[in-house]
């Protein structure tokens, strides 16, 4: 186990050390002590290492993560795991706005709640939120799966593309072109896998599925009220 103490080590050195780990490194277990709400902690990692962050972080924790597992034992600020490519990011606490924004792959597992615009423009990432999510979540979401064990706020999935949204609780309102869809066996299978990977205490049958009505995919003046 390698330790990086941010009380004594600056951000640049912390990130540079983690970014320097090669794919075949033997030093796969890392701990970051005293993050003290720092921004841009553990960003741009690209090796199959496991990083435990002992405390809460600021903006963009684990931004653009690839391959690595980053486990935050606290809460995170805006933009956690933004544009994540692969790997896994686990948040024990809550996440602020834009969690998983534009993520291309990997799993973002938020044990608490996520604020507004969770999964905005997601492009293939899987996001599991054990609590609730805020308004305008999955706005313009393109690909991937957003699973919410709690409730969703206003305008869920506004201007949605092909991402799949699964919500166990209530949805305050759906955004433009987002509709409830039939839960077919293949969706139950996807959901069961995600719930297992995220360690969630729920069964797929408890969820409802939402997706794009695909009415806004090509401009049509007859849909002017939706624009």
């Amino acid at each position, binding site marked *: 186990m390698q330790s990086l103490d941010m009380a004594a080590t600056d951000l640049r050195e912390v990130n540079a050390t983690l970014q320097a780990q090669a794919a075949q490194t033997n030093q796969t277990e890392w701990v970051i002590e005293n993050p003290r709400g720092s921004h841009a902690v553990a960003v741009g990692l690209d090796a199959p290492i496991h990083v435990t962050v002992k405390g809460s972080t600021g903006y963009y924790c684990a931004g653009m993560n690839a391959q690595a597992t980053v486990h935050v034992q606290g809460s995170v600020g805006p933009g956690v795991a933004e*544009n994540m490519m692969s790997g896994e990011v686990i948040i024990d606490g809550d996440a602020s706005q*834009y969690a998983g924004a534009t993520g291309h792959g990997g799993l973002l597992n938020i044990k608490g709640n996520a604020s507004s615009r969770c999964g905005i423009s997601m492009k293939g990432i899987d996001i599991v939120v054990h609590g609730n999510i805020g308004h305008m979540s999955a706005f*313009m979401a393109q690909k991937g799966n957003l699973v919410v064990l709690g409730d969703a706020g206003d305008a869920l999935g506004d201007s949605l593309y092909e991402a799949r949204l699964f919500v166990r609780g209530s949805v305050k309102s759906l955004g433009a072109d987002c509709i409830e869809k039939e839960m077919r066996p293949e969706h139950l299978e996807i959901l069961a896998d995600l719930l297992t990977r995220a360690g969630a205490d729920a069964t797929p049958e408890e969820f409802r599925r939402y997706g794009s009505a695909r009415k806004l*995919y*090509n401009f049509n003046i007859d849909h002017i009220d939706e624009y």
Partner: protein
Amino acid sequence: MDKTPQTEPRQSWTFSREVNAEIRRAAATGIYDIRGGGAKRRVPHFDDLLFLGASMSRYPLEGYREKCDTSVTLGTRFAKKPIELKIPITIAGMSFGALSGQAKEALGRGATMAGTSTTTGDGGMTEEERGHSEKLVYQYLPSRYGMNLHDLRRADAIEIVVGQGAKPGGGGMLLGQKITERVAGMRDLPQGIDQRSACRHPDWTGPDDLEIKILELREITGWQVPIYIKVGGARPYYDTALAVKAGADVVVLDGMQGGTAATQDVFIEHVGQPTLACIRPAVQALQDLGMHREVQLVVSGGIRSGADVAKALALGADAVAIGTAALVALGDNDPKWEAEYQALGTTHGAYDDWHEGRDPAGITTQHPELGARLDPVAAGRRLRNYLNVMTLECQTLARACGKSHVLNLEPEDLCALTMEAAAMAKVPLAGTDWYPGKPGF
């Protein structure tokens, strides 16, 4: 019998034939006009400025013999590896998707031969442009289409796009006919749908957030490469000051003539400021912060010649970027395709439906047969030639003003032909020592 004299048929200035045609088009289709090509209305521009040249009080440099340096370094503030350019003219961001792969390759080839940089666009980095661009600026856009860690780390600079001159405050739309399998794959979207480019970034909302975003990008790229911020010509003083505050190495300022972005005609013609009006406020902001020449200013929007380049530099820019002019150099709107332009209901020079993908010149298209019309090697050579001509023209004017480096050009080398240009450029109206708003008058 003599015919009774009649009033000549008189067209309305307010309801001109052009205006009426647009009303009829809107009534028939129910949708606003979308196009590229930038603002077509006449606005005060570099043509309204003149160089004074050397005289009794200043001596010129000998053309072709006495050196006039054109090299520029961008990104000296924080980056470990600033961009070294041989000429002060760069290629502006234009996406693969909007442009064909051949066109992107040609831009890379031409820019590299001329010793300058080219820039990606919405949709990500292609092998064509990375492979043929010695210096490639990677745009970081709201949509983040194709954005990935690997490409970010092989960029020579990162340009965070806040706005574009053609549409400050607006997003974009790539129509479904240009969303081929390859374009769709790069953008993680279904093939054939209209693809929306968002108008603002998904994970930050103001200059304070942007400062943290820049920190993240620098941490990901090890503080190696410059970070540019591109803004449309909206509030150039404050936008520049806030970009500096947010930590930019370079500010790219795009006036309303910036034309390669397709959007609504009403947006292009009615939002934003002319390029000429943007430069002095931006330079003033840099000077007020003690950052002029430390944070470099790149100006774009309607740059066409070495004279435009020299005038932008004289007003305080460090470099310029060209988009539309580069496409014309590649072969866009060439009269040799006139029959095809006519078939599309337009004519060469006026073709601006770049978003529709039917470009006869094979530049703004994803159609394989049209795209194949553009030979990237020959087109790259044309761009190289054009960049060289612009550079020679700029040097000629700088030497005539007695400058051994093009960046030594200054406002005192200029006068203005119109009151408007004098006010915007803050240089005297020709024949006077006065410009509107000059202190003490």
